[in-house]
């Protein structure tokens, strides 16, 4: 057994997010985890989850107020700490979001756009099919066309298509999972997507860094 079996997953804690849902899912899976109110709580955290509910601008304001961006830039973007963004936690990885005209973390090239209300009901709310693309270990065991739970009015348009780890259609085709090296994110709520979502969370939490992080680029 590798020494990452007891890896502690740090969950970035919002005041108005659904960080607790991720905590409950990890507890159910028996994964050691800790809520992090600020970077001062990082301690032994081996990997990070950024849950998200609400708006991109609000999320960025919160992250800035708690002092996260500079620390995350160093540990995740420049370092190799495994990172999982969920929902808005995916959207803020890009450069800019049309939601609240928000400047985001900019780790991945691309922008975030609104679904077209003329063609689909907004928000997208419900179970949609996710088609993984080959290339990243995170999505390697996902079934083709499995159903995951989405709640979103906005979607990411990656500037580099090699960052797209899975696609989903809702009026338009969009990136439902993105992954680059140690950075992974799902537009769907893995913590609310039944067995398939829990399996994906477990994969993120328990694979070793070497197994999890794509050698690509």
């Amino acid at each position, binding site marked *: 057994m590798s020494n990452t079996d007891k890896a502690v997953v740090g969950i970035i804690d919002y005041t108005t997010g659904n960080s607790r849902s991720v905590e409950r899912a990890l507890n159910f899976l028996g994964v050691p985890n800790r809520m992090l109110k600020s970077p001062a709580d990082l301690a032994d955290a081996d990997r990070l989850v950024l849950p998200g509910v609400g708006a991109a601008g609000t999320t960025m304001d919160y992250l800035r107020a708690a002092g996260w961006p500079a620390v995350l830039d160093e540990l995740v973007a420049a370092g190799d700490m495994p990172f999982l963004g969920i929902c808005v936690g995916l959207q803020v990885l890009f450069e800019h979001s049309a939601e609240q005209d928000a400047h985001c973390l900019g780790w991945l090239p691309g922008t975030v756009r609104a679904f077209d209300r003329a063609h689909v009901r907004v928000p997208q*709310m419900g179970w949609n099919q996710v088609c993984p693309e080959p290339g990243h270990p995170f999505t390697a065991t996902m079934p083709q066309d499995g159903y995951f*739970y989405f*709640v979103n009015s906005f979607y990411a348009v990656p500037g580099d298509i090699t960052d797209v780890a899975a696609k989903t259609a809702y009026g338009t085709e969009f990136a439902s999972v993105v992954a680059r090296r140690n950075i992974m994110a799902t537009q769907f709520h893995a913590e609310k*997507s039944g067995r398939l979502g829990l399996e994906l969370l477990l994969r993120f939490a328990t694979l070793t860094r070497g197994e999890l992080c794509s050698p690509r680029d």
Partner: protein
Amino acid sequence: MLTARLIACFDVVDGRVTKARKFQDNIDVGDAAQIAAAVYADGIDEVIFYDILASAHRRRPDLATIEAVAAQVFVPLTVGGGITSLEDMHSVLEAGAEKISLDSMGVRNPEIIAMGSKEFGRQCIVQSMQVRRVPVQPGLPSGYEVMVDGARVATGLDAVAWARRGEELGAGEIVVNSIDQDGTHEGYELRITRMIADAVNVPVVASGGAGTPSHVAAAFGDAHVSAAIISSLLYSPRMARTMSVNEIKAELSKIHDLPVRRT
């Protein structure tokens, strides 16, 4: 493409699930957390809990039951009943709900829909409405009136106008509960459900009256809903034979050609 989403809706009193007919005569069905875990294992897509007495008795939401359910159910959970403030919403979300359902309280104080939407996002606020057939008349052009307080009090609000107003205020989903069809097993009230689904852009949920999978299919096919609440079909003590979630989904898929999530 989104699946036809099936929601189990539980009327809860003191941590116990109960089943009503036309919003009355509730019968005890069982422990809320146990029943929720069972329907989750059976493949339900979402769960709604209404604390049906919290509002009338001016009680706070039952956080212990919400926490017990959220610890073992990993599909979305909506909670309603007794929520009168942003503080209540915070505590319900903290306890494990994804969405907050506002019904009578939203009618009494529409601003709470706007406040919740601004604080937590539109996706978090569900506008639930109890509607009753009435003669078409000035002020009620749809022929359906919104009722509150367990279907006991008429509001004079037209159902379609109230749905439009709810969407404007910031509701991210609208549940249409038919008082006339509730617990009858005779099918949803398709007419008003379709009128509302066609009048708003947010997802609409059919509620009240499903007795067969064909009724459920009609809500998706004829009333343009995004989701359907099934309660009697799953566990009503008044039904001769109830069905499992997976049996219902199999029929929706095979006979009605609807996309469903199989587990």
